């Protein structure tokens, strides 16, 4: 008998602007000890589906229109709020995407962890605490008798997610719902968390619903997979059959969008060097307990970049990738070292002196939601750099903006629209258009596709490749995703703790990594099921 059986679940949101059907006629079932992966792009209804089971959707506007969800003979959808409360955190527990914001920052983690036990089991504070310490140990928190009294901000992201998992499991639930639990984490940490969930599932015979947009992660962890699109079920089946023999067009499209393979690298021996970086160091001053310390974000970095080359820069969060990128443009002035751009030294130039170089060096940022000015239309955003650098006259500027929009694949009719009227992918196209408006020779792309869905990600990567070739751009492509870097880059630099630990041609690094850290990154990157397709 299945532990959970969901039949014909439909959920809609009743807003001022009309009714949105978020989930349509979804059915699935789950045995104890099994993992169901629910995969889909943002807005596909995968989270809504699970929140509805536990009554965690804000109502209004959410309304469950039909369906049943039998969990050991109880229909969750018919339960009252107080009946559901006895199930939540007790028989069904949840972990969430962002461990930074999902733990209460005002409470010690021990206090938060024991709450499910205190409210569901009525055991003493001391026993609950002992239980929490044992569980922290089990999820791999070092020295738990001491760390149990820490606050969440004293932990790293991966450790917080471990704490979340321990808190979810403390009342020994039968079902764990994990909503994108590794999306906010670095790849090597993601690997550890997935292994932890798998191990705990076997040990406690736990059923898991694992929600993710990342097919690679789903391939690793799930037994059964449900693919959703726009609230509807697209395909359902065992993980193996889905990945080796997808039947639906959308699933095939999703699988095809996973970047794989490498770019054919042209011969660079005749190309000239555009950028020559030597001994570049960027330090930040820290003030801690009245003492001055220095944090070396970029430590003695040197590399060169050819004209027309795409150089990948990979590393985990905090490794100094973004600081290096910004230092190269003098947005964060480097502390020492030299950056020679097309024969000119740019370290030490002030912002006025930098102006001619600003035209030739541009940057694309990660978050197209935050990096575009919400009060400027596309026209304003794209025309500003043209006018500022004197590249367009009043008569020609509109024509040039329209050409730029053609270049980055935006319909000309959108010219007077504001950023909020666009999807994430379209916004990133605007941001790319802004960066290439001044016809730069060098572009730094700082995680430009990390915030995008996989099918959109593929389109943006293809756009970048097209622009690089068409304008003979040199690009520093910053990413934490090795598969993406392999798809786009000629060479790869690996950064750890502010240093470059390895630089090699893409395929050389992929097949024979030298540094331990590179090996670790590679082994965390993609599932064999996907790579061997």
């Amino acid at each position, binding site marked *: 008998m299945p532990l959970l059986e969901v039949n014909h679940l439909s959920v809609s949101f009743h807003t001022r602007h009309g009714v949105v059907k978020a989930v349509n006629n979804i059915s699935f079932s789950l045995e104890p000890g099994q993992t169901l992966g629910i995969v889909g792009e943002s807005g596909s209804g995968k989270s809504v589906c699970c929140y509805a089971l536990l009554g965690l959707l804000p109502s209004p506007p959410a309304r469950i229109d039909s369906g049943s969800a039998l969990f050991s003979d109880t229909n969750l959808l018919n339960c009252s709020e107080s009946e559901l409360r006895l199930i939540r955190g007790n028989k069904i527990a949840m972990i969430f995407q962002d461990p930074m914001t999902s*733990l*209460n*920052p005002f409470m010690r983690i021990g206090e938060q962890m024991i709450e499910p036990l205190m409210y569901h089991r009525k055991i003493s504070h001391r026993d609950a605490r002992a239980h929490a310490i044992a569980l922290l140990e089990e999820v791999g928190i070092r020295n738990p008798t001491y760390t149990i009294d820490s606050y969440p901000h004293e932990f790293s992201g991966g450790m917080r997610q471990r704490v979340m998992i321990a808190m979810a499991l403390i009342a020994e639930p039968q079902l764990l719902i994990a909503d994108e639990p590794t999306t906010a984490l670095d790849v090597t940490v993601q690997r550890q968390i997935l292994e932890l969930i798998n191990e705990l599932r076997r040990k406690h015979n736990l059923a898991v619903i694992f929600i993710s947009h990342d097919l690679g992660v789903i391939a690793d962890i799930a037994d059964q997979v449900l693919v959703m699109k726009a609230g509807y079920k697209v395909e359902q089946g065992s993980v193996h059959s889905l990945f080796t023999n997808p039947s639906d067009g959308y699933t095939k499209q999703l699988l095809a969008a996973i970047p794989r393979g490498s770019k054919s690298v042209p011969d660079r021996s005749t190309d000239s060097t555009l950028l020559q970086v030597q001994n570049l160091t960027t330090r930040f001053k820290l003030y801690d307990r009245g003492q001055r310390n220095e944090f070396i974000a970029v430590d003695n970095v040197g590399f060169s970049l050819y004209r027309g080359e795409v150089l990948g820069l990979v590393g985990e969060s905090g490794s100094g990738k973004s600081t290096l990128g910004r230092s190269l443009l003098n947005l964060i002035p480097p502390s020492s070292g030299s950056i020679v751009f097309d024969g000119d030294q740019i370290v030490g130039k002030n912002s006025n002196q930098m102006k001619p170089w600003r035209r030739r060096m541009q940057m694309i940022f990660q978050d197209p939601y935050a990096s575009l000015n919400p009060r400027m239309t596309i026209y304003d955003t794209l025309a500003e750099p043209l006018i500022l650098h004197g590249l367009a006259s009043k008569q020609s500027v509109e024509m040039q903006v329209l050409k730029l929009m053609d270049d980055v694949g935006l319909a000309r009719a959108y010219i007077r629209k504001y950023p909020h009227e666009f999807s994430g992918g379209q916004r990133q196209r605007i941001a790319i258009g802004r960066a290439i408006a001044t016809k730069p020779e060098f572009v730094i792309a700082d995680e430009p596709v990390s915030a995008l869905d996989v099918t959109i990600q593929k389109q943006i990567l293809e756009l970048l490749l097209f622009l690089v070739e068409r304008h003979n751009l040199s690009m520093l492509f910053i990413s934490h995703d090795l598969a993406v870097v392999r798809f786009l880059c000629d060479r790869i630099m690996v950064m750890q703790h502010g240093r470059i630990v390895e630089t090699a041609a893409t395929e050389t690094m992929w097949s024979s990594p030298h540094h331990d850290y590179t090996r670790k990154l590679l082994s965390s990157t993609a599932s064999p099921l996907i790579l061997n397709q």
Partner: protein
Amino acid sequence: MWRFIGSRLLQAIPVLFVVITLTFFLVRFAPGGPFSSEKSVVPEVKRALEAQYHLDQPLIVQYGSYLNDIAHGNFGPSFKYPGRSVNELIAAGLPATAELGFYALFVSVIVGMAAGIIAALNQNTWRDHVPMAAAMLGICMPAFLLGPLMVLVFGLWLEWLPVSGWGEVPGDKILPSLTLGAAYAAYVARLTRSGMLEVLSQDYIRTARAKGLPEYVVVMKHALRGGVIPVVSFLGPAFAGLLSGSFVVETIFQVPGLGRFFVQAAFNRDYTLILGSTVFFAVLIVVFNLLSDVLAAWLNPRLRNGLSNP
């Protein structure tokens, strides 16, 4: 933490110095003086008075000796209340003002926070609109209107409470406390509501609900602590304001507090009393801002590390 408090108190010294200097010279440059009134005073008498209070000396000398006095905690003699020092006047008015201030603070915190929490939990329903409309009214209505209205309704029509006085008949402290606390309660209600709404939309509230906690635990244990931080930062300076006395409320209800001294001092060009009250208020502001920062850090552990590097 102690380091932080110590350094903040050290920072207060230049602040107080600037306040004293500015006030000292501004009141001196204002036309008129303590002994120039409509009645013409015999020039000899005026000169004698000025000599007695050292007003005949050069300004810079007076400034120096005033600084010296203040460093010794002595605000000097009042010019208009003969024979009484500014220290005595403040000490005489402070108890009533402080008591009134505490009651008003109590009223504003209890009423304001309750209204704010109820409004936030029932966003966009009548339970939200009614308290928030009342809060708007409370902010808009000046004390010189609210006070007499309260007297009219509770004192004259219903005859529940005495219309004025302080500590003379039972219940005479209620109306002044309510009148003074009303505006603050209104601000607290609005701050609590927006703070709670912000916190209630946080991911960790969803986590708390997913743990199966009862709603009152979610609100009182998980949400309130973060939600009241804006209120705490508001209450620091607000309480300093309450303790320096409210001229309007004290006048309406005949409360023997500080407020009337301060206002009278300005009209009378009572130089030492103006300076004394300004310094007193500045010290209160510094102390209560510090207190509210310490309280905020106690509520928010992420701020605690920041406290060691001001």
